[in-house]
């Protein structure tokens, strides 16, 4: 048993939050709307996982990198964390790319003068 995978997921998730806040992408733009989207996404993928587990397609194997804590048959505690990360990454990516394509990296920042960390980085 180890926390390697869970820790890696949490660090990646922290990275998503930092990216979100710095660029005002997702939660930093509209927290309620982002929460609804993230919840819907995680629910959707959990349903998919459960369907796959029930039909015997997805099998979990004990690993020396995982905690081994299980939420249910073939559903390790790491899975929902991974799904949150996947949904967060997807939204950050799409919203970031949409802004880049609009040529508005700077424009997206205009309303956020209270974000000194963002100034001068581009």
């Amino acid at each position, binding site marked *: 048993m180890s926390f390697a995978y869970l820790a890696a997921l949490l660090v990646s998730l922290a990275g998503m939050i930092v990216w979100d806040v710095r660029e005002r992408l997702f939660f930093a733009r509209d927290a309620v709307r982002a929460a609804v989207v993230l919840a819907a*996404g995680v629910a959707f993928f959990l349903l998919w996982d459960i369907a796959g587990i029930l039909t015997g397609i997805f099998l979990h*194997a004990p690993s020396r990198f995982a905690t081994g804590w299980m939420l249910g048959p073939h559903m390790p505690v790491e899975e929902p964390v991974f799904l949150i990360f996947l949904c967060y990454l997807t939204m950050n990516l799409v919203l970031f*790319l949409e802004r880049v394509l609009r040529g508005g990296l700077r424009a997206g920042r205009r309303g956020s003068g209270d974000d000194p960390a963002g100034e001068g980085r581009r």
Partner: protein
Amino acid sequence: MTYLELMPAFLALALVPVALLAGTPREAPRRRWAAMGLALAVLIVLTVIFDSLMIAAGFFSYGDGSLTGITLWLAPVEDLAYVLAAVVLLPVLWWALGHRGHVSRCLRTWLATSRPISWVNTAYPFATAYWLLTHSVDAILIVGSLFFLIPYNLMMYGINDVFDYESDLRNPRKGGVEGALADRSEHRGILAAAVLLPLPFVLFLWAAGSPASGIVLAVSLFAVLAYSVKGLRFKEIPFLDSATSATHFVSPMVFAFAVAGAQWTATLTAVTAAFFLWGMASQAFGAVQDIRADRAGGLASIGTVLGARRTVLASAILYVVAGLSLLPAQWPVPVAALFVLPYLANLVPFLTIRDDDCERANTGWKRFLWINYLVGFAVTMLMIRSLLPA
């Protein structure tokens, strides 16, 4: 079931929020497509790398024979469906939610369109038939019941409302519990929802069933489309209108028989025939109240052809035959023949109806909707009784 068979249902489920975008202003669609495409490319690369690492580390594996065997490095190609779904589902939902009040307005419209008062009429026959035959609560029972509860009705009534718009405008009865009159601006959204919401359920039931159940499902969906869609309009072809409407209510039960792999016995035939005749009788009686409106709108129905009084009579005869057709079935099913009596009693005041006061039949139609609940209750009691040891 293999991963490849399970996948279409979930990819279709990820597409459902697209229906929420209908009726919103189109904002830079090309830029959004491009952002989604680029994000997908990045996510595919990341998935191939990290999925392979995780499989190499032995985090998870896949059931024997559940994969196509095509892999990108170690990652099965099927796993890319996850990121494809994420890239469609999440941003579309985000953009739809960006229009204040739009999503809740859509959901309210879909709800009204699906006629909640009629939900159980299609879900209940499916669920009970399937459970009585299999005695198991499984994915088919859950997905099938949900499908016949809401998406099936949204599809049926949504397509109906959009294609009926012109004639419904002249009908003051529509807009309440019996029918929701949809505004023209909402038509695109209703049609999108009427197709996109049922799709994942249909794909799942198709993959989970047999060739026979697939055929029943196809017939059922064709009847839903053919009833009102432009070019077919079975509802305007006298007699075919009643038969198609009966198919709407009988096919969920027949689908349950087929997907449960039931032996086709005399009892199942009797039940199917009786239910079908009951459906035709009820549709015919329902058409009586609209005779004048239909004639004014240049529409044909069993009612406009036979006239009010003879349509009520035809409906009564169909109810009687429905009851009689239950008699050869296995005990205690023949007892259910008595259940046509309330429907017959409901017709009595209208045996003298004339075409020019056909709207009077609406009182009977409202009563009919409540008789369904009472008879449904009685049928349930009979089924429970038949399950108990003698």
